[in-house]
């Protein structure tokens, strides 16, 4: 303990431990947080599905599937869906009935409220009891059912005890045609509704350990018949996946930068400590300590203090990620799985390893130092060679980039980019200094000295300006990306984002509906036709044989696409290739990710099968779709008239204030066939998600900033001796303390300007590329960021630099010129 306290008197040691603490916090925060967020997305997808996976079929499912699932330790639930009339004495209505087992849903919940539309909301993790049903608001509104009142389902009278607000498969069911009823499966037989001729969907739902689930999937897939289909939680709502995915990408990017900066700071600190520790080890050997003991005495404080620092870092990381997770997800109403203690242990071990790797040059030098170096100091000259430190830092950066990105190719790209930027900045600053040296002849003696100090030490100036240039570059980029993410979300979710979807609008109802909307002062409703069809052929070959061989692509073509016809490019859609409206003839516009998934390109002729009719046309454009905008979005859009004769209904997305409830009731009353979906709850969650996400992301940004300051402090600490000598020389020649302060601050201002100018410029140039390819955001960047870079560079370098050398200005030159033992 005594030795640790003694070592803490070294600025380099404190810097080393601070960097270790920050890297542990950064890594434990990001790895745990992003894992939890990914799990949360998985859980949310599971919640949408009502399970982790399911098998569905148009025929009753083999009982052996259930037995096999139980053998794998999986939980089971059952649901049977079909269309049926639901009635009271006065009225009847077509409903989508889902009969569920008592333990349905296995994941997620069915959110209901009192049928009298009170504000009491219940989150049910089990289906309705026997003799009860929960029904969609249209059914309750249309049939005028009150609490506990009976409705008839076939031969059975059941009581309505809840109004469905949200339910599993709600996402997929957003375009389902009939309003929903959920009933207990035990009542099904008594209804007498199911006959061999009934059109029914049978589902067997599974939940449990992911590995067991994977094994079960492998075992069951070969046994499935052509009418049976496996689905699992790999496809979520595009909006949420896109939003959370971007937060994760951003956090990874920010933490990657923080970790890299922390490693650089650790490297700088370790390099500064190397010469000191080698001397110390030599002294211990002189005093009669055998090599191993001297080695142990010198390095014990490092290793012993590293462990509590890593533990503290992991603990702080836990708190930070808990806070960030709460900000991002829980406040947005998204359930999070608990953090795994094992993840923290792994991170702690990784950070300790990183610490040891960065200390390796010190360890090697200390283990090899002969005591005679105390007599012949020239023998320690090799210790000023920084190649071992650079190598260890580089190895660590490579390992961290691979660890965080989990992708060799991406790691190679990031490392190459980073190295290229570093080289560019380094030489850019060297050239700029050389250019300024020729160009500038300052008259003020203070600025003259400042320039002289830069021009006479171009390497030293380039080192600090280059490193800080990289930091400015990274921080600005991070800030731009952060701002752009939230601006994009803000843009996509304006105050008037749609909060009510009306679907299943028949052609005959269109005019009446428009008139009703007019009465509510809604005049700009866009009614899109919805045509549902499968992709049958690509360039005259069956689609099943033409798409790339992947589970997702097979899954996609086995389902019907929601398509529309329009000649007006929908809001937040951008044509990334081709022409929106072809010069002549018909054409399809395909969403970019879908096109990539299915291997579709411009000019490919695709044939869609819509209820048995076929419609063929070439792909004339590829679109980027902003899924977060909550508008009606489509994977495939056809030119008007292409689907002539195909069955269709219409959809519209409306913004209704203050709450769309009243309008949706009125629509349900006047148009029994139209389904109104109130998105207000989802929108509220989404807004909270964005607002809180902004706070959490700013928190992560703070890490990067702290790490940057550590790096700067490390560099300035390393340059302290040479500055000490310079100040001493000028003072011995008669310069006053205040004159030297002005000159040194002038030097820092100039270096800060150079760093900011090049760092800011580079960030503007590369930002567009990074944001487009990594975060997939449309990007507009202003050159004003260069000014921001210059101001940041000047401010940070001047303040930090001054702080590091402030004590040297008033020390007598004779003291400054004495051996540097401080």
């Amino acid at each position: 303990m005594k030795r640790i306290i003694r070592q803490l008197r070294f600025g380099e040691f404190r810097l080393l431990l601070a960097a270790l603490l920050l890297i542990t916090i950064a890594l434990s925060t990001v790895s745990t947080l992003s894992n939890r967020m990914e799990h949360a997305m998985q859980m949310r997808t599971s919640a949408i599905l009502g399970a982790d996976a399911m098998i569905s079929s148009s025929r009753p499912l083999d009982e052996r599937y259930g037995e096999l699932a139980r053998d794998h330790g999986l939980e089971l639930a059952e649901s049977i869906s079909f269309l049926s009339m639901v009635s009271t004495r006065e009225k009847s209505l077509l409903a989508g009935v889902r009969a569920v087992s008592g333990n349905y849903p296995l994941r997620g919940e069915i959110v209901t409220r009192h049928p009298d539309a009170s504000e009491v909301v219940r989150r049910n993790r089990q289906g309705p009891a026997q003799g009860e049903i929960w029904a969609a608001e249209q059914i309750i509104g249309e049939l005028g059912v009150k609490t506990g009142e009976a409705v008839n389902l076939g031969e059975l009278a059941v009581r309505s005890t809840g109004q469905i607000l949200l339910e599993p498969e709600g996402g997929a069911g957003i375009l389902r045609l009939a309003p929903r009823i959920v009933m207990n499966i035990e009542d099904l037989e008594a209804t007498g509704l199911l006959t061999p001729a009934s059109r029914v969907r049978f589902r067997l739902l599974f939940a449990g350990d992911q590995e067991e689930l994977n094994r079960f999937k492998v075992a069951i897939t070969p046994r499935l018949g052509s009418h049976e289909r496996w689905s699992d939680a790999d496809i979520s709502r595009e909006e949420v996946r896109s939003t959370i995915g971007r937060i994760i990408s951003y956090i990874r990017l920010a933490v990657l930068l923080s970790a890299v900066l922390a490693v650089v700071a650790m490297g700088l600190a370790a390099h500064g400590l190397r010469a000191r520790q080698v001397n110390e080890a030599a002294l211990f050997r002189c005093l009669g300590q055998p090599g191993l003991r001297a080695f142990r005495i010198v390095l014990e404080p490092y290793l012993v203090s590293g462990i509590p620092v890593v533990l503290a870092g992991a603990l702080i990381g836990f708190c930070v990620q808990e806070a960030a997770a709460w900000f991002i997800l829980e406040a947005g109403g998204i359930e999070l799985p608990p953090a795994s203690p094992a993840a923290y242990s792994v991170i702690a071990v990784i950070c300790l390893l990183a610490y040891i790797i960065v200390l390796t040059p010190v360890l090697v030098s200390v283990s090899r130092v002969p005591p005679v170096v105390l007599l012949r100091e020239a023998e320690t000259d090799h210790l000023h060679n920084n190649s071992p430190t650079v190598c260890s830092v580089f190895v660590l950066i490579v390992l961290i980039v691979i660890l965080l990105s989990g992708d060799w190719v991406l790691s190679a790209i990031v490392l190459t980019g980073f190295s290229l930027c570093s080289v560019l900045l380094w030489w850019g600053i060297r050239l700029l200094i050389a250019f300024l040296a020729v160009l500038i002849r300052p008259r003020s003696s203070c600025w003259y000295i400042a320039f002289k100090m830069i021009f006479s030490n171009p390497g030293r100036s380039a080192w600090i300006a280059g490193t800080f240039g990289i930091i400015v570059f990274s921080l600005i980029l991070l800030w731009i990306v952060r701002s752009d993410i939230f601006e994009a979300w803000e843009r996509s979710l304006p105050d008037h984002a749609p909060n009510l979807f009306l679907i299943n609008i028949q052609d005959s109802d269109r005019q009446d509906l428009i008139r009703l909307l007019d009465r509510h002062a809604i005049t700009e409703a866009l009614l899109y036709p919805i045509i549902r069809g499968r992709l049958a052929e690509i360039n005259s070959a069956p689609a099943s044989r033409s798409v790339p061989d992947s589970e997702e692509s097979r899954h996609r073509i086995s389902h019907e696409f929601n398509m529309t016809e329009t000649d007006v490019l929908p809001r937040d859609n951008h044509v990334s290739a081709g022409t929106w409206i072809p010069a002549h003839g018909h054409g399809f516009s395909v969403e970019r990710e879908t096109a990539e998934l299915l291997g579709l390109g411009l000019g490919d002729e695709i044939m869609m099968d819509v209820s048995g009719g076929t419609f063929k046309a070439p792909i004339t454009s590829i679109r980027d779709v902003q899924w977060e905008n909550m508008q009606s979005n489509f994977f495939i859009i056809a030119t008007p008239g292409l689907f002539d004769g195909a069955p269709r209904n219409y959809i519209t997305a409306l913004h209704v204030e203050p709450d769309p409830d009243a309008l949706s009731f009125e629509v349900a009353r006047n148009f029994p066939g139209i389904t109104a979906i109130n998105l207000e709850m989802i929108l509220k969650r989404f807004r909270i998600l964005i607002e809180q996400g902004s706070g959490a992301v700013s928190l992560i940004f703070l890490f990067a900033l702290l790490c940057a300051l550590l790096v700067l402090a490390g560099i300035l600490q390393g340059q302290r001796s040479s500055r000490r000598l310079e100040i001493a020389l000028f003072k011995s020649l008669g310069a006053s303390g205040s004159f030297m302060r002005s000159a040194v601050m002038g030097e820092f201002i100039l270096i800060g300007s150079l760093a900011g100018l090049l760092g800011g410029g580079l960030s503007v140039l590369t930002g567009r590329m990074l944001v487009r390819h990594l975060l997939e955001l449309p990007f507009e960047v202003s050159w004003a960021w260069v000014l921001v870079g210059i101001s940041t560079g000047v401010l940070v370098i001047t303040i930090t630099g001054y702080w590091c050398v402030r004590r040297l200005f008033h020390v007598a030159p004779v003291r400054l010129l004495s051996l540097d033992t401080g």
Partner: protein
Amino acid sequence: MILEAVDIHKSVFMGDREIRILSGISLAVSAGDSIAITGPSGSGKTTLLGILAGLDLPGSGIVRLLGQPFSEMDENARALMRNGKVGFVFQSFHLLANLTALENVSLALEVVPGSRDIRQRSQHALSMVGLADRAEHLPSQLSGGEQQRVALARAMVINPAVLFADEPTGNLDHGTSEMVIEMLFSLCRETGATLVLVSHDTRLADRCDSRFRIEAGKFVSGS
């Protein structure tokens, strides 16, 4: 003899070229004696001091310190032999920058197994060099002369049998040198330590019982 060297040779190689540093050096030092090795820069005197103290090995020849022929021992065995018996004073002081004067002195005792009363003995050593009131100061807060006195206290606190000093006044001004020289000799006299020093300083060399002048790796005179 407490220290004996017989026919010491030492060479270094610069590429293929052999540079002879020491050629056939022999000397013997009795317990309690003081000897000075003088000579111009590059004559090999510091190399000889390193070999005599067991910090370095000769190319050939035998060195016996405290009766043990350590020239055949490995580095660890030589270190154990020095432990608690040999003190050093260096030209550049080699104080640990993060330790106070008192902690620097204590260090020499802390590495000797079974040391007791470390703090009191260290304080006593500091007061012997006149720095009792600077015990809590860091090296950066001390002048060059004060730092060398702390180094002297660190060397003497273990009551060494032999004290090796490499240019102990090399970094000090005239007045300070006088004070350090005086302390060095009086402390060795009080404790009975043998003193082997290397110096350019004739005042220092003149105070020793014996003087050896080395040039181009050979003794050219001795008394």
